[in-house]
Each structure stands twice: as structure tokens, then as C-alpha cells.
């Protein structure tokens, strides 16, 4: 992923929409990825991308350049996702969602998942996690972020990140075991 230069950030702070377009193009996939895994709903995830960039645009002048731009955008996205999650009704995974996971595991687990497959899989594996556990699990296990960055994004300390991740991983593993996957 290309990094956004400080010059582009400064132009955004001055209200240059063309400069901000570069940020949107650069980071929309990253935000969409977090949102779809957090919310388990493709349309909500697209709305989240819009909300996140709208907030980022309005708050751009407050962005502290000592932090990574991606960390700052992840922070906004996490808050928007948690807010949406609270307002959304609980989604119960259906047998068809479990089938999608089964098909994925039966394959070589290398093929590129479609968005609807992602929705089904995260619905199944993250079922029963609290919002905070789900956020830490998604950032760490699905997005592959390091603990330090997760601390900055979530505002949790190292111990809280570790304990939330431990509980989430345990819960996900138990859930997969119940569905017949070996540990």
C-alpha cells in the first residue's frame, strides 16, 4: 500500500478535496474490510465507508501527523462500526452461512472469497462475541494488525487487548469445534 505524503495531508487540512480523494482511493478497501468483518453486512459496510470518510474530512484539521494515517482512519472506523453495531439487530447465522464456511474449509482455503462469503463466515465465527472482543479479534486475527496499533486504535491498554483477544479466540475456537472442526 502506497503511503500518503505529508503534503497531501496538509492539502487536505486546507480543504483540498482532490487531495482527499487520494486518501479515499487509498484507504477505502481497508475501511470496507474492517466494516464488513465487524458488521457482517455488505450494505452497512458500504455506508460505514462513507460515514468514516465524511468524519475524517470534517476532523482532518485535528489529525495529529505523528500517528499513522491508517491508524487514525481505523480509529474513526472502529467507533463508527461499534456505534452501528449497537443500533443493529443481532444477526443469527443461518445454516446456509455454516455451509459457506464448510465449503471454504473443504477447499484449499486459498481462493479469493467473495463479499457474500465473507459476510457468512464472519457471521458464523464471530457469533457470541461482545462488540469489544469482536473489534479486537477482527483487528488482530482478520486484519493482521499488531498489538501496539490495536492499542492506539481502540484506546485499550496492552493487558485489555490481550485479555479480550484471549477470550475471543477461545470463544471462536469453541464455536468452530462445535461445528465439527478439529483443534
Amino acid at each position: 500500500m502506497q503511503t500518503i505524503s505529508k503534503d497531501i495531508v496538509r492539502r487536505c487540512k486546507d480543504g483540498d478535496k482532490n487531495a482527499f480523494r487520494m486518501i479515499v482511493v487509498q484507504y477505502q478497501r481497508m475501511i470496507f474490510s474492517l466494516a464488513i468483518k465487524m458488521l457482517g453486512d455488505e450494505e452497512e459496510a458500504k455506508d460505514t465507508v462513507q460515514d468514516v470518510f465524511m468524519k475524517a474530512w470534517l476532523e482532518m484539521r485535528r489529525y495529529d501527523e505523528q500517528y499513522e494515517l491508517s491508524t487514525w482512519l481505523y480509529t474513526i472506523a472502529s467507533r463508527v462500526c461499534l456505534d452501528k453495531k449497537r443500533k443493529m439487530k443481532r444477526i443469527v447465522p443461518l445454516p446456509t452461512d455454516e455451509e459457506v464456511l464448510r465449503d471454504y474449509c473443504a477447499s484449499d482455503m486459498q481462493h479469493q472469497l467473495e463479499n457474500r462469503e465473507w459476510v457468512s463466515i464472519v457471521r458464523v465465527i464471530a457469533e457470541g462475541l461482545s462488540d469489544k472482543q469482536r473489534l479486537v479479534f477482527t483487528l488482530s486475527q482478520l486484519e493482521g494488525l499488531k498489538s501496539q496499533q490495536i492499542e492506539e486504535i481502540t484506546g485499550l491498554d496492552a493487558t485489555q487487548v490481550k485479555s479480550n483477544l484471549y477470550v475471543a479466540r477461545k470463544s471462536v475456537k469453541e464455536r468452530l469445534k462445535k461445528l465439527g472442526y478439529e483443534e
Partner: protein
Amino acid sequence: MKNSKIDGILKGLRGQNPQVDHENLLVDSIMDALPDLDKVVPLAAEETDTKQEETQVSRFIIMLRTISSVAAAVLIGLFIWVSQHPAEQEEAIVHRQALDNYSQSKGIISSATSPSELRGKYVELKIKENRKNNLISMYHER
């Protein structure tokens, strides 16, 4: 340690990301929705000021409510105390006098001080005296 099937699933998922369909459309819709910052900032500041004023007013109202409810509670308590206190004292005096008279006539000294204690003592002695009188009259009847 041998990697488990479950770890394999999670690792497989970590290696890939969902794709945004029609990326350019999404970018265009985001860009179309962005307001000009120079128009937004004064509005946002004004909104913040209004919110701060609203917060100050609501805090003042809460403070007034608290003060008035405390004052009302104190007034009610005072009223109850004033209305009960003289009656209580009068009652105590009546019972003290009655008990003193009775104690003097019977040569008993009571240590009771509160109105209820005095009333209780007086009633107790009266009952004892009545019982004694009843026994005496029964004895005479026989």
C-alpha cells in the same frame, strides 16, 4: 507445535481482504457528499457554542431543582418537628405528673424519662393496681 485446523482457518482468512464492488462509484459518492470545509467550520463552531450554552443551562436547571428539593425536604421536616414537638412535650408532662403523683402515693421512684417510657410505666402500674384491687374484692366476696 502442530498447527490446528482452526488455526489454519483463521490464518487463511487473515491472508485476504474483501473487495469493494464498484470502487469508483463509492469514491464518487463520498466526494460528492463532502461539504466545503470553510463553510463547515463556522457552523460546527456555532453548533458547539450552542451545545455548550445548552449544557450550561441544563446544569443550572439541575442545580436549581436540587436546591429546591433539598429546601422542600428541610421545610417539611421542620414543619413535622414543630407540629409534633409541643404535643409530645405536653404528653410527657401529663404522664410525668400522673406517674409522680402515683409514685409518691405508693412510695415508688421511676427512672423513666421519655414520653413513651412514662406512658408505659404509668399503664403498667395502673394494671398492677387494678389487678390487686380485683384480688382484694374477690377475697372479700369469698
